[in-house]
């Protein structure tokens, strides 16, 4: 709704939290640290640079899809929304969000500039439904000090296993040497980590568990192998137990284990810790993508943030304003990548200033290995949650592995089958 000749107002709905206290008025993006600060300053700068447009920010609690659904149902959705690439199908298939091909073209954004993972993540049925903002994946965050003590450092780099057996062997060696578990995992009240691990190692085995996006196949030897591996680690005490996300995050900071399986977003935090003297991580933090444990192919399950435009009646100038903002966000993707997430644009990856960022060189391999699920799969959050529940009960021994896999498969398929 355009006031007589006032600026066009567009509503941007996002998560990432609020940090107006420090950055409410700042347009100095370079000085901003962390997701919240960077996105806040970015928007501030856009508003400052474009007097004819005003971006009103609607911050929502992560991930905010309930509110989005409610707003869509109520018929007045925001103009621009953060959305995980894994969620796009849910909305695109119902025409709740607009294809952006034409609009992006009009502001000179060319999908061929996206990284493969990003492009796969936002494309549905040949149409681009979102502007990719980043990709992120689970990584192996390594405590080099402990690794060194366990003799698992080879010319400055952590020694990574190349097969399940090596993994077990190195883990045992590590634990023997340090008396601490090799892995730190968030295993309590954990909605997704288990599933992401499973996806990663299924991808590495080329298991086509989602050959049909409406039907998952989990009663496979590949899946069994993966669960068996994690159960083994659990049974032998080679991983922390009974930790939830918070406990695990603190545990790694406090040097209570060798490898912490968590996402790209923690790089900054741990890099900071590594620079503090006295911290258990001091001078001893490395991060690498998941090792390839299975010969078939090197792959890591990845997701990413992106921007979508909910379907609604909009005036032409409003639409134009939206795409100008999208263009602006794309142009500042480097700034965003300082959060630790992987840039969604090949150009940024290639840029020297990105590679200059700490540890980026160590994870650049992800650009080629990051893989989302098949585009047609809906309700991926729910699917991950179901699989995680079942894997937890299998790994902690409350259910036989095969039973857990069967239940997971049945429950997931029930969800997908009953979709309208």
């Amino acid at each position: 709704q355009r006031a007589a000749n006032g600026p066009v107002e567009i509503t941007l709905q996002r998560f990432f939290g609020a940090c107006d206290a420090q950055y409410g008025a700042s347009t100095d993006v370079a000085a901003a640290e962390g997701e919240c600060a960077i996105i806040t300053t970015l928007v501030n700068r856009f508003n400052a640079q474009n007097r004819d447009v005003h971006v009103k920010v609607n911050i929502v609690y992560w991930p905010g899809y309930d509110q989005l659904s409610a707003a869509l149902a109520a018929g007045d959705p925001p103009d621009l929304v953060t959305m995980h690439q894994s969620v796009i199908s849910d909305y695109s298939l119902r025409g709740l969000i607009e294809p952006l091909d034409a609009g992006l073209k009009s502001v000179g954004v060319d999908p061929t500039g996206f990284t493969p993972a990003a492009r796969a993540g936002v494309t549905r049925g040949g149409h681009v439904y979102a502007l990719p903002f980043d990709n992120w994946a689970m990584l192996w965050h390594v405590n080099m000090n402990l690794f060194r003590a366990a003799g698992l450092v080879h010319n400055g780099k952590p020694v990574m296993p190349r097969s399940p057996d090596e993994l077990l062997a190195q883990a045992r060696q590590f634990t023997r040497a340090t008396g601490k578990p090799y892995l730190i995992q968030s295993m309590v009240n954990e909605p997704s980590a288990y599933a992401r691990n499973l996806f990663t190692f299924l991808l590495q085995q080329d298991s086509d568990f989602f050959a049909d996006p409406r039907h998952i196949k989990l009663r496979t030897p590949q899946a069994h192998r993966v669960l068996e591996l994690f159960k083994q680690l659990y049974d032998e005490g080679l991983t922390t137990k009974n930790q939830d996300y918070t406990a695990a995050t603190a545990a790694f900071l406090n040097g209570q284990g060798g490898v912490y399986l968590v996402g790209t977003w923690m790089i900054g935090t741990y890099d900071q810790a590594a620079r503090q003297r006295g911290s258990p991580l001091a001078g001893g933090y490395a991060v690498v993508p998941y090792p390839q444990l299975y010969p078939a192919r090197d792959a890591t399950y990845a997701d990413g943030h992106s921007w979508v435009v909910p379907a609604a009646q909009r005036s032409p100038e409003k639409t134009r304003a939206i795409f100008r903002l999208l263009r602006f966000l794309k142009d500042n993707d480097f700034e965003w990548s300082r959060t630790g997430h992987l840039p969604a644009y090949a150009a940024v990856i290639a840029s020297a200033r990105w590679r200059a960022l700490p540890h980026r060189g160590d994870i650049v391999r992800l650009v080629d290995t990051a893989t989302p699920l098949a585009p047609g799969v809906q309700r991926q959050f729910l699917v991950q949650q179901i699989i995680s529940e079942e894997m937890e009960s299998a790994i902690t021994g409350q259910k036989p592995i095969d039973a857990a896999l069967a239940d997971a498969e049945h429950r997931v398929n029930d969800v997908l089958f009953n979709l309208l």
Partner: protein
Amino acid sequence: MAHARPGRWIAVAALAVAALAMAAPLLWTLLLSLKSNDDLLRGTAVAFAPPYTLRNYGDILGHSAVFGWLLNSTIVSLGVTAGVLTLSSLAGYGFARLRFPGRDIIFILVLFGLAIPEQSVIIARHQMFSALGLHNSYGGLIFPGLAAPFGVFLMTQYFRAMPKELEEAAWLDGASRFKTFWRILLPLSLPAQATLGIFTFLSTWNDYWWPLISATNSSMYTLTVGVASSQMNFAQTNGLGFLMAQAVFASVPILIVYVIFQRYIVAGVRAAA
């Protein structure tokens, strides 16, 4: 009954323990709210030792929108409380004291209403409010709270227990039924009003679900939705201190309301005794 009874000391001890169990988490929350998020990342044990900081509270207050949310929550909670007290008292008096055809059946039906879980009406309600364009408005936030039958239930019970003579005296004094209600029974129902008031205000203040899906526009956020929205992802890990500060901050108004109403409960009791 001034006479000490056996086991009194055991009782006192038990009470003390219970009080401790009750108080500990609250103090814990307060302590955590005074620590910086980064310190807490290492674990919450640090909360027992300095340094303490008001930084988290600063961040809350520094967030301009917070006062808007505070205002919204206050308006909505007061609105619902006032509405519930009014409707429940009127209806409670009607059900308890006035004979009209079908009264008992209707009352039973209202009691049935107690059993309706929010989830079984929320979707239809959301659609209805969309049709009426009530979302993102105070009305949209206040109306649903008014339907709760608990108040009617409570007030009816209370009015039934009141002596009839007072009412009759008022009628003889030429007071209309409404005036009798307004000047005589209402003032005498203060204890019940206070109890009901506290809990209506409280549940409205802490309500998260309906405001989340009705007030989707950040300018209409209530405090609960607002503070939730301002948490970054994994806030419990990365923003624990901030989270706790928000909890303390959001609780203060209710504690004030509690203190006020509690006084009325006591006063009402004195009047009754």
